[in-house]
């Protein structure tokens, strides 16, 4: 059976990336909760002054989908952060997958002239940190020693 050894030393880069994911998770969760509150206010008819309401049903659906994704990504980032702190191989893969999605989105935005260079730079740094040789070794599944 493949298990994680608790004795594996956590590389410093992983700690940094873990904190970044924790921060990202917290920010996304806060944005999600704020969005949810705004949506509730809109739906309940109380409204908010200065709030841009969706003009069409399609726009409303897109915003709702974005809200759902943000709400999903927040806890996911928190889970990934915890997995990274505990050196779990699945956390490494999920972190890479999340950054892949993030980079693809950022490159798409760059191509249509709405680049977010800070987010792009952060993602590049996170990927290069996760792909370092010692980090990869730390996250490789190990065989349980006998006995």
């Amino acid at each position, binding site marked *: 059976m493949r298990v994680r050894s608790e004795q594996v030393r956590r590389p410093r880069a992983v700690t940094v990336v873990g904190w970044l994911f924790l921060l990202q998770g917290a920010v996304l969760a806060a944005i999600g909760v704020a969005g949810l509150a705004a949506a509730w206010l809109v739906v309940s008819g109380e409204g908010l002054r200065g709030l841009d309401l969706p003009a069409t049903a399609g726009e409303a659906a897109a915003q709702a989908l974005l809200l759902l994704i943000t709400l999903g990504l927040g806890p996911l980032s928190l889970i990934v952060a915890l997995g990274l702190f505990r050196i779990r191989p699945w956390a490494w893969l999920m972190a890479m997958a999340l950054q892949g999605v993030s980079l693809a989105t950022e490159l798409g935005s760059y191509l249509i002239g709405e680049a977010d260079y800070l987010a792009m730079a952060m993602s590049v740094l996170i990927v290069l940190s996760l*792909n370092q040789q010692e*980090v990869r070794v730390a996250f490789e599944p190990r065989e349980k020693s006998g006995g």
Partner: protein
Amino acid sequence: MAEVRERQLQPCSSDLELLRRYEPVVRYTRGEEFFPTHVDRYVEACSLWAHRPDGRDEPLVGKAGLSLETLGQTRRDEFGAVHYLKLIEPLNVAELTAYLLEQGVKRLRGHQERFRAELGRLARVGYGSRLLAAIFALSLLLRGRVPGETAAAAAITFRKLREQDDQPTYFGRVVHDDGWIALQYWFFYYFNDWRSGFYGVNDHEADWEMITVYLSHEPDGQAVPRWVAYASHDFHGDDLRRRWDDSEELELYEGHPVVYAGAGSHASYFRPGEYLTEVDIPHLALVVRLANAVRAFWVRTLRQAGADAHASHFNTFRIPFVDYARGDGVRIGVGQDRPWKPVLLEPVPAWVSQYRGLWGLYARDPLSGENAPSGPMFNRDGSIRMAWYDPVGWAGLDKVPPPAREREVQERRSDTLAARQIELDAEVAAKSVELHQLGVELAALRGHPHLEARYKASEERLRRLSAEVGQLRSERAHGQALAEALGERAARLEAGVADDPRAHIRRRAEPATDTDLQSSRWVEGWAAVSIGLMLVGLVCLLIWAREYLIPGMLAMAAAFVCIESILRRQVARLISGITVALAVVSALVLVYQFYWQIAVSGMMAAGLYLTWLNVRELRR
């Protein structure tokens, strides 16, 4: 137990006895068509031709007139002419049909002697190598090659010969050189059908292969086997050689080395298995260098894992081929299916020493893979083979003293070293005195302006002498370390601890492991059709959706990679690979957008770091 590793030999054995005593056991792969044979009938069935520099081919001796004797006659010719033998005449339709029918029946019946590739070569490598393999296959249509039905014709001819004389033959040669006795075993095959029979690199008429067993002269007159070297594709020198007592690397059968011959290629291997070999493409040398530089930067400078962690053992810019040396077919040698008939090449016959041409068809292949080889003594260009004129150096054994001389050589080296150390001691002492005197002289000269010229000259002499003394001291220190190492090794050998038998090997052929060969039929099928499908898809895009060519190609490539990853169960690797690729592209975008800011920030950071270092030093 079958293995006898310490067989010894009584003195005064004849060369033939020696050859027989250590003649190899050769194990072939099931499906092999050609086995080592005598050259006489082959030559009698051949005609001799000359290829002229202007492209003409001219017959020199017709089929009826050629024999080993006439082949050995000296022939003069112009520069650039290539002499070659030609065995195969094109098959007529009836012969070819009969042969193909026979092969088809064998396939249908699941004939025991039939070769099955199992996991194909393309399933063992990535897309880059597969694409190059496709280009290589297409290039055969353009460059010279042995015609398609030649292998069939050679097989038919060889079968006819076997009906007359079925005993496998080797040509033996014994060379006494520098304390070693090299027993060379040369094997002649009618045909190399690696490409047409076993999906390999090339086909060519005639094939010469060789192995060498090295014996050492012992003080009591005995000769003991110590090393063995097998010729194999692009391996050279030390990498060809295995120690006789290295039971993990060298298999012995009743004191005879066991050779596993590659199917069709007849290259020799020490262990049974399937060997993924690579063929370099000369025109891609620049691309390979560039890719290696990028990989080195990625792995060493950026300390990234992707380039080496996921790289296959094989270079993307080389074409992969599998040499099947399974050893599950015919076995030749002592105690095997068929015994050897030895032929001693002593005195060296004229067909060996005088005929410098090719032993089969000259296919005009610029890469040489499809041209027939020369005889045992010569390279294709007519120069003498190293294996012939220096059989000891050929396997890198020229630097290894025979065991009987080992101690003497070691002692002599230690003595030479000790003598040099004494010399160095004396030299250092003398020059140190001179150095001291110069130092004193310089001290005395200081403060005397009228002696400035003398001061400068002495200063220059002192500088040179000081450097010289430093060099001598360094040599003495290194000599001391070497003497200690020699002493340690002498003690080790005295205690009966031999050197590592594999310390000399830098690169060795490794058969594919069971894990390498675990792959589903789906993966194999996909590997076989993917490159072809990609080309078809490209053509479809060009015809019907030219305006979407680039996005279409990208989507197609992505789809192909995804399918392959799913089939190979490497989705995790795919995800990380894509993410890293996106990160690299994003990094390039950032550098492009902010190169000035990045340069300024870098310099600022360097300046701040240096300031911090200096301030920290001040505070200490």
